[in-house]
């Protein structure tokens, strides 16, 4: 009980200490989505989502299970392309370029928009190779020294280097769940993406590992545009500057996190935040 109380208190502190809400609004728009729809076969999963995602801030998507928040997230780096029968409509622009145009290529797009998945999924290779893989396939390292540097700095940025520096050649799958997830984050930032998508990155982790990842997200937003899908409203409140509430495939309300949590305009949003739906 004590721990829970502490967590709630921390929530308030974090919300109060985030950047000035207007600051987040003033940041340039990095991602622009307009009327995005997704069909899985005959079933429509998203009904026209329009949203602007600001540069170098954390935007969180919240909503009950099956509301389409993960589906929309997967549209942003075209991961839905890999699902049989998925059809995406509408427009998503990264820096004014439609990502569903033939150019940029999907491979290039995913190098610019990294992703961290719900369940930590490091490659069954060494820690070093996990982080080095992206730079290698995209040809970002000119030499072995370059690559070493990228690996070390990525692990540092993910706050993992000190814990694994003596066992870089051991398999990434041998780490604890929280470490694995940070390894996945290190792997994602090794290719210096502009945007990082996180699909419930802490749902498989214990509270301590979660707290570490949340801290990390807060640090990363200085350099990256982050979009995070989360089931935990506390987490959304703690880490994000903007929050979007999804329900039944619709974007119900979107705005500065503090406003959404303290003064939602829409009744559905209020009900969800008060715990009446979900």
């Amino acid at each position, binding site marked *: 009980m004590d721990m829970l109380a502490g967590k709630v208190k921390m929530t308030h502190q974090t919300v109060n200490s985030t950047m000035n809400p207007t600051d987040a609004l003033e940041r340039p728009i990095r991602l622009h989505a307009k009327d995005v729809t997704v069909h899985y076969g005959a079933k429509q999963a998203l009904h026209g989502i329009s949203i602007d995602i600001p540069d170098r801030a954390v935007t969180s998507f919240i909503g009950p299970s099956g509301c389409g928040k993960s589906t929309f997230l997967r549209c942003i780096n075209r991961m839905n392309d890999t699902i049989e029968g998925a059809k995406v409509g509408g427009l998503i622009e990264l820096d004014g370029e439609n990502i569903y145009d033939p150019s940029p290529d999907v491979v290039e797009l995913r190098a610019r928009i990294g992703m961290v998945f719900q369940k930590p999924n490091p490659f069954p290779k060494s820690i070093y190779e996990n982080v080095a893989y992206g730079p290698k396939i995209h040809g970002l390292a000119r030499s072995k020294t370059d690559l070493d540097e990228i690996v070390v700095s990525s692990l540092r940025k993910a706050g993992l280097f000190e814990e694994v520096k003596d066992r870089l050649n051991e*398999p990434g*799958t*041998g780490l604890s769940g929280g470490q*694995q997830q940070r390894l996945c984050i290190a792997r994602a930032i090794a290719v210096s993406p502009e945007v990082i998508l996180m699909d419930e990155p802490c749902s498989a982790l214990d509270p301590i590992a979660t707290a570490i990842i949340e801290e990390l997200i807060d640090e990363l937003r200085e350099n990256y545009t982050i979009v995070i899908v989360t089931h935990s409203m506390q987490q959304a409140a703690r880490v994000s500057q903007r929050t979007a509430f999804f329900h039944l495939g619709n974007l119900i309300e979107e705005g500065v996190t503090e406003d959404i949590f303290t003064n939602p305009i829409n009744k559905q949003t209020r009900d969800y935040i008060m715990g009446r739906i979900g």
Partner: protein
Amino acid sequence: MTDIIPTGHRATLERAKLIRAGLGRRHLQERLFKGFGMAAIALALGFVALLFADVLTKGLPAFTQSNLRLSVTYDPEVIGVDPAPVRAAGQSDADFRAANLKWQRDVALLNWNKVVEASLRAAAPADYEIDSRQILTIAETNARHQIRDLFVADPSLLGKTVTVDVLASANADNWIKGNIDRELGDAQQQLSPAARGLIDQFKANGTISSGFSRSIFTNVDSRAAPAAAGLAGAFMGSFYMMLVVIILAVPIGVASAIYLEEFAPKSRLTDLIEVNINNLAAVPSIVFGLLGAAVFINYLHLPLSAPLVGGLVLTLMTLPTIIIATRGALQGVSPALRQAALGMGASRTQMVFHHVLPVTFPSILTATIIGVAQALGETAPLLLIGMNAFVASVPATPLDQATALPVQIYLWQANENRNFFEARTSAAILVLLGFMILLNAIAIFLRTRLEKRIREGPRNGHARRQG
């Protein structure tokens, strides 16, 4: 909400009673099922044990064979031939070769049976009554070639006496091993009374001894000299076919599976292909033999009885097995791994070759080896492309005539010299089974080794934790 399940202390007791009442039946069911399972396993093991006991008891004696140790005298009176040609100064290559060939032909035309007979008589007690034809039935008919070849290789043997080990004939071997009923009358015996008596005396004085039969591994099949029949030709035939299968079926099968599983769009056409591949795996193997005869021999005019054609037919037969097994392995790869690779911006090809294939490699390898082992044991399709021909030479290339191990078993079990070839057949079965067990053992060994290497690092084996 209505109370379907009542609560309260009384109700709890009632419920416990109900559950307990059903327990006896549930335990009985479990015991019955376990009993059936164990009975099934015992039955299966019993059959396997029966098979092995039968093959081993019949086949093991064939690995020892009766040998004759003879003192062979190259008597100049019998070997009336000019001395071997010596190359004269100024003689051309062709002339020398022609002279040499003529000499060899002259040597071959000599009556070497006389030399064999003389050697046998030398080993027999003095004045033993036996005629020439009868005494020659003791040594295998290839003995004369063996003795002649020694002379061709070294013409200076003329007039000398050397000790030569030759094989006893199949009948003599049977007589010594007790495969022939000694009580049978002379009319029913293959060997004359004099020959039988001499064999027993040879056995007693050590002229005939029993030793490990190397000929079964080093010789080719033989009808004229059954005791000298061996598996070398069939083994090489099988070996070449395995090579063809490995070179063709493995890359084609694995590549088709990867394409179908990872790249092909799911459409009516790919569904049709999938159904057909599954059906192909169930096609009787003899049908593949007919196909091979029609396509490779009649249409493409590839040579009859060639391991290349056999290998091609077995490739067709093995392909579906490898494709199905490889697809199964690919389907088993967790979607998380694919997503991780694609999410990093890997192309589909990179995802497959960098991540999916390394993980599935052990399963694909095992499936491949088992498919190849299956092909190794296949007989029916080979009969239709002429590989059941009697071939008395070791194939030098996959295009030469050859037979295969399972076909050799088929041929030997039908040999009219049943008494002798029953054991040989079982011995051939043992060689084939040994080969198969070896292949499967390699598959298991590689699989466990590779899986271990993929799953865990060398040091961090037990520290694996889930978040």
